[in-house]
């Protein structure tokens, strides 16, 4: 029997953590303010009360410490789910993430796997102070040994987090902050296929490829484009490491046009990686070069300028327009 409830992503994540703590006594939650407060976004709300302060505990304010301690806990047989309070606070822990968590299984020849699920409130949209709004997925996806995932809606959030919390490898779990309070239906009994990308909306004229908070915006764009008779297919990438090239390529093989959308800066961003893979897989069928609609090569700006920076509906529509009107030389 399916069990469908309408909840926010924040609640979906909270339920996924509770389920994970219940399912596996070795699962732990640690971080700043995750205990009695329940996290600044209340994702861990009530978990310490239910599971105790040994399973869900506050740490001193030190991100490298939280991640380094998680390495040792993993070695001691636990599955830590550390939280860094905001994406930009992961930077002080980059040494632990890259030189330790990402390499320990390799360095130890498979004897020290790192089942660590690092939860990070990610991306913009809250007009938050500096370092509370970052988009560091390309940096993480570049690191061997890590897996990177970002859910787009409550259904994905619930099931992907439960999956990550049961995986033997380190998963960087990027939660799209601006989607925390959006409610949608969640079928807790039916995860569906959680591997790779998914088609969030079918269309035949152009593929929009996005992840995290940008999926909802691309779905909005698809609605608007449909009014003009343009049928947009939206691919929710979900996994940013590994990237599901097959699903992306199948979509582009059908639509023959692709626009990649992300908030992170253009240069060396995932858009370049995805565009390259599409070119390799679909070179002969592409009707236009792969377009990218992204943030700019500037630090994530203050709240006042955020709307100028994050791809908005108009910029994405312009991107679609460019691939639709592209003319080959001499054609």
């Amino acid at each position, binding site marked *: 029997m399916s069990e469908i409830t309408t909840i926010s992503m924040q609640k979906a994540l909270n339920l996924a953590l509770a389920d994970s703590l219940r399912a596996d006594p070795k699962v732990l939650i640690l971080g700043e303010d995750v205990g009695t407060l329940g996290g600044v976004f209340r994702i861990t709300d009530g978990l310490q009360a239910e599971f105790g302060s040994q399973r869900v505990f506050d740490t*001193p304010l030190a991100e490298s*410490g939280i991640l380094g*301690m998680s390495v*040792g*806990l993993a*070695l*001691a*047989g636990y599955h830590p789910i550390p939280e860094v309070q905001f994406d930009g606070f992961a930077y002080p822990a980059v040494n632990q993430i890259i030189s330790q968590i990402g390499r320990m299984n390799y360095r130890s*020849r*498979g004897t020290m796997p790192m089942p660590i699920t690092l939860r990070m409130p990610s991306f913009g949209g809250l007009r938050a102070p500096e370092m509370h709004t970052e988009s560091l997925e390309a940096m993480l996806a570049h690191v061997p040994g890590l897996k990177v995932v970002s859910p787009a809606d409550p259904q994905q959030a619930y099931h992907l987090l439960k999956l990550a919390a049961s995986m033997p490898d380190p998963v960087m779990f990027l939660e799209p902050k601006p989607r925390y309070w959006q409610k949608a239906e969640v079928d807790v009994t039916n995860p569906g296929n959680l591997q790779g990308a998914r088609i969030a909306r079918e269309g035949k004229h152009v593929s929009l490829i996005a992840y995290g908070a940008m999926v909802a915006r691309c779905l909005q764009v698809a609605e608007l484009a449909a009014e003009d008779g343009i049928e947009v297919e939206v691919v929710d990438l979900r996994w940013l490491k590994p990237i599901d090239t097959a699903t992306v390529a199948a979509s582009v093989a059908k639509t023959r046009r692709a626009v990649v959308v992300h908030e992170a800066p253009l240069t060396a961003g995932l858009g370049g990686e995805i565009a390259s893979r599409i070119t390799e897989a679909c070179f002969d069928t592409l009707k236009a070069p792969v377009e990218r609609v992204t943030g700019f090569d500037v630090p994530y700006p203050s709240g006042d300028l955020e709307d100028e920076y994050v791809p908005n509906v108009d910029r994405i529509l312009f991107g679609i327009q460019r691939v639709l009107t592209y003319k080959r030389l001499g054609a």
Partner: protein
Amino acid sequence: MTQARNERLSTASTLEVPALALSSEQQRELYQLLETVRHLDLSAIAWQRQGIIPGYAPERGQEAAQVGSAYAMNRELDFIFPTYRELGVARAWGVDMVAYMSTHKASWHGGLYDPVASRFAPIQAVVGGSVLHAVGWAHGQTLNGPLNTSTDEPQPSGKYGVAISYFGDGASSQGDVHEAMNFASVFKAPVIFFVQNNGWAISVPTDRQVAGGSVAARAAGYGMPTIQVDGNDIEAVYAATSAARTHAASGQGPVLIEAMTYRRGPHSTSDDPGRYRSLDEERSEAGQDPVDRYAEKLQAAGVVDQTFLANALSNAQDEEEQVRAGVIALGSRPGQEMFDFVYAEPTAELKAQAASWREESEHV
């Protein structure tokens, strides 16, 4: 400088170290370990010069600190978190020496030993990084709950297994070390921070590296009991580590031991200490050689004689030859291994990269 270092040594001790009587048999075992480690260490430098291994980080002068501390730990219950200069710890702990040296042969980054089975974490280049791992592992022991230890053991093992983290005065400048000490004290984790203050962080002397007088002085700021010990005195190191282990294992939280030693050789086989210190300085600052010192002590006490010392040397030479042969016999690792250990659950994408590597490399 020696005098200043010794003055710090005499004033900063805060955890009481009870006198420990070692049996003659234990003393002879410790001496054999010292001699073995000394020979392996010196040999490794020769192997580098002979082209058998590409590089090595010598530890001459730190043998007593390493052997004495490892000897005090419990091989069934405890876990060691080393850096890259811990050959003496590894040997005293029973880590396979060919597998250990394989990291210096560039066979595999963490060495070819099994770190979980040997309870000796992979060799670590980012020297502050592993200090936090020790705290995490130690907190894991607390979460596991008290051990069922038998009461008839001669030395009670305590409630918890203990993590021991080895690092140096240079590493103590890294933020992770301070986060580790703070976390350990907050969580009362059963962990020993074992600092080998060998006077040098490559070319930078301790007084340009460590503010606050000593590493132990800093740890006191985290509310952690500390022991400064003469790192050239193996029995003093053993006693200090035993006291620290008892403290941590009983659930009273972390301890920092600062063993005052001297790195008599270069930082690595690529280093040239002549650029930053003179032989006169080395002689005046290094103190008495820890291996010679123990030989003299045991001879004076009648525990060993010339025959024993000659045998110890001969045993060390035999082992050195075995390890050398083993290291030479280590073939190159199969290329496939590059892909095998990245993930516990490899991705389809990495499998595809491995397949294309195989196709392209087997083609030639």
